[in-house]
């Protein structure tokens, strides 16, 4: 019972916060809604008994989103004074979100204690091996059956990295505004200036 309740709570919140991610006008708000969506996704994973994936979701995605958040803040021109101005007005909403998260935490732990949610009969390669933890099962698949694909994923990341460097990296000599101080100091007035005495009525010939 408690699992079903928790499932619907998490599922509704995932969808609601995903909608908010794309409808929020302020990018910082978008990012915060995204974090909420990931937390609820992690809650769903806990419910089906995939603790490892849930932890990954929190650590990798929420962690990455924190970094993304920094990028957004650095790249966009956001007036933080203006953001803080609505603090009192938005205080009730903030408290509400915090309370929902607290309730989820309690429900999630309660549901986890009550055992994993049975969505269906696991079969085939999807079935966890008896007596093995999540991590062991994933490891056995990832480095056994899916070894070839796992290595390929590595090469895809390598190609992405090489591509980014190939397209953006410029050799140092093309940098502009580079100051050569010794060359400047070696320069003498007679190299840089010429004396001319133009006749009256004619222009200077250089």
């Amino acid at each position, binding site marked *: 019972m408690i699992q079903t309740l928790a499932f619907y709570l998490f599922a509704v919140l995932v969808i609601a916060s995903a909608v908010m991610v794309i409808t929020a006008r302020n990018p910082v708000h978008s990012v915060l809604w995204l974090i909420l969506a990931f937390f609820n996704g992690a809650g769903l994973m806990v419910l089906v008994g995939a603790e490892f994936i849930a932890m990954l979701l929190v650590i990798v995605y929420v962690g990455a989103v924190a970094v993304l958040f920094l990028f957004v803040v650095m790249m966009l021109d956001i007036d933080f004074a203006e953001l803080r101005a609505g603090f009192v007005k938005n205080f009730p909403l903030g408290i509400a979100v915090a309370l929902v998260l607290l309730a989820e935490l309690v429900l999630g732990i309660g549901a986890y204690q009550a055992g994993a949610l049975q969505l269906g009969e696991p079969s085939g390669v999807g079935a966890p091996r008896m007596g093995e933890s999540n991590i062991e099962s994933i490891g056995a698949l990832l480095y056994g059956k899916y070894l070839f*694909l796992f290595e*390929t994923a590595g090469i*895809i990341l*390598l190609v992405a990295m*090489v591509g980014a460097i190939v*397209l953006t990296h410029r050799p140092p000599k093309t940098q502009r505004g580079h100051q050569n101080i010794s060359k400047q100091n070696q320069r003498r007035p007679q190299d840089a200036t010429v004396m001319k005495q133009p006749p009256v009525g004619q222009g200077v010939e250089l």
Partner: protein
Amino acid sequence: MSYASSFYFTLPEVILSLSGLALLMVAAFAGKASARIVTILSVAALFGAGIFTAHLLSDPAFALGGDAFSGVYRMDAFGSYAKILIYLATIGILMVTQRYFDSTGEYRPEYPVLMIFGAVGMGMMVSAVDLMTLYLGLELSSLSSYVLASYARSDGRSAEAGLKYFVLGALASGILLYGMSLVYGFTGATDYLSILAAMSDGLSGGMLFGLVFVLAGLAFKISAVPFHMWTPDVYEGAPTPVTAFFATAPKVAAIALLMRVALDPFGAQVDAWRQIVIFSALASIVVGALGAIGQANLKRLLAYSSINNVGFILIGLAAGTQAGAGAMLVYLAFYVAMTLGSFVAVLMLRDGEGRQVETLADIAGLSRSHKGLALCLAVMMFSLAGIPPLMGFWGKFVVFRAAVDADLILLAAVGIAASVIGAFYYLKIVKVMYFDEPAGVVAGKGDAASWVVLALTTLFVSPLGFLLTIWLGNWTNRAAAALFFAA
């Protein structure tokens, strides 16, 4: 499954990946000066992988093929045949590339390395018997392609082409992935055999949605109408050797992938996808033929020509028979030779200052100043138009015969009628080269490597190519049979 046999079957990919990694280190430490040697070594690696693939193809011990890594990858005659085509096309392009970048000095050793990794991805695409292998291979080849499209950094058009290709390619990948997730959700499996088994009992609505999305995503990759809009822009903007690459190797891989997906996992539901393929084939032929007529840029024109050819190839798929699949493979071999030859000929057109010439007006009267080049280009154009003594006719003929045998007479008739429209602009190029007043823009000679590639492809599509059709027919029959082995 034993790891030894798995690695043996995937050895072409392993060879290429390891050479790619090693050459990347050479590129990183030796810098730009190593571009030439890295290119030569890349060609050697591709050649080695090709030789090994030919060994797998010809050794009777592997005639039935074999699964690697518990059924995510399958080595068989079909995959080996497509891989040899891919490797040959990539080798041809690597041979003609360096001269193109000479004028801008932008040639760097990362270029051949990216092509090698692209070839790894394409090899995986044609050997995939699992949706995950399919997707990873596709992404590996697409990612290298996006980078290669915008490789000429000083050219704004190249950057635009890369960005367009990337955004639209990402959209297509998303559609494909969504379709695959639906197929997985409704059949409960990602490997082709289980999907086939699950679909044999009938097609549920979700499976149908998944199938349509998968086909739409793949249609984008082979630039079949109505997912062809990116092709002319990307082909025009990308550096010419890269365009030649896009029109040959990735297209072979994507078409082979589409064949395997349509005939293996979705093979029980031919009626569900046949009408989609028939529409796409006809629309591609017509749009490719009509769109090319007004084009002044040779690369844009060849882009429409490749859309047109994809339409003809899809006619073979619409037949849904083993003969149809064999005909597609025959057509693919000639298509690669014709496209590669045409692009190499365009690559060799440069003006007195070594700049690339790519408009139709510039090649007016080419036959007076450059007899050999004009002759080769004319042979390619006649062959693409399907004029009988040349091999382009043979490719069209086998495809239409397969369609007629499968009772798709109307499709074949419309296809033949539309190929007459297509002949117009191919013949226009020949007319401009031979009968117009010389424009005198093209100057200078091509380099030896380009001439070798051009001469070989011209010989292949010339009537002399008939000497090879015995082997070609034998290989394509075995390859097509491998596709129907599971069904």
